[in-house]
């Protein structure tokens, strides 16, 4: 694969597949931009905004992976709930007099880049080099199939996750309540 085969002709953009590919590239750019903003800005509020952008991009990636249901859940749970919770915590716990929370410490800078680069390189090379076995599909992965599997094969895990969520809510209430009267 050389550079000339990677770049398509100009008229290839104006087909349905070409536009889908273009949208996919935009989604990748949005995801990575959001992730970088989330990890490098000095103010935590901007970091949460970057996280929201990144999660919207990840939802787009899920849509391209034939899973509109999981994409919708990603937007509902992460963009709608988790990010709002984090921004509430920032409002409650990040003191106004200290504005800067940027990357610091011994690992900020070259050492941190080296660590992240090594992990990225290792994972990417592993993914590219391996020939992944492809098996024939026995199902379509529709929302109906997800519901049936959740309530038959994976019902035990489903119940356990609901118990975990219940305990997490109770634990969060107790932790946030303790010492409040002081």
């Amino acid at each position, binding site marked *: 694969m050389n550079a000339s085969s*990677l770049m*398509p002709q100009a008229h290839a953009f104006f087909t349905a597949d070409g536009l889908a*590919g*273009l949208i996919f*590239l935009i989604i990748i750019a949005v995801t*990575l931009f959001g*992730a*970088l903003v*989330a*990890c*490098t800005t000095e103010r935590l509020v901007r970091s949460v905004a970057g996280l929201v952008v*990144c999660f919207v991009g*990840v939802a787009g*990636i*899920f849509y391209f*992976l034939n*899973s509109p249901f*999981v994409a919708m859940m*990603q937007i509902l*749970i*992460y963009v709608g*709930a*988790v990010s709002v919770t*984090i921004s*509430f*915590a*920032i409002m*409650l*716990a*990040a*003191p106004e007099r200290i504005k800067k*929370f940027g*990357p610091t*410490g011994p690992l900020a800078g070259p050492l*941190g*880049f080296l660590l*992240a*680069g090594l*992990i*990225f390189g290792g*994972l*990417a090379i592993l*993914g*590219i080099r391996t020939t992944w076995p*492809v*098996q024939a*599909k*026995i199902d379509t*992965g529709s929302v109906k*199939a*997800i519901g049936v*599997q959740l309530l038959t094969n994976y019902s035990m895990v489903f119940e356990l*996750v609901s118990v*975990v*969520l219940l305990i997490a809510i109770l*634990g*969060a209430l107790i*932790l*946030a309540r303790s010492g409040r009267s*002081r």
Partner: protein
Amino acid sequence: MSILTLHNHLVTYLVIGALLFAIGIYGLVTRRTIIGMLIAAELMLAGASVNFMAFNRFTAPDPVVGQIFTLFIMAIAAAEAAIGLSIVVAIYRNYTSIDTEDLVKLKG
């Protein structure tokens, strides 16, 4: 393999997942506040979810399993965020700071 057909290849998604994971690692080791580290951990979970969904789409025989696993990851991540943030609020109440440099009470 043209740049416009990248979304039909498993490798693209694996590289995106690895990138998200590595950015999350970078944020986790450089941030000095607990909330920042929590945000970075959410990014790493997103990278893992992208990997699950990619294998679900391209290699798994039953393309339901990866979606269910991703839904479980989301549920656990939501629980983790709720617990982590209430711990952050409790820490702020006791120390009036969420900087990890200030939380040294257990240091000998």
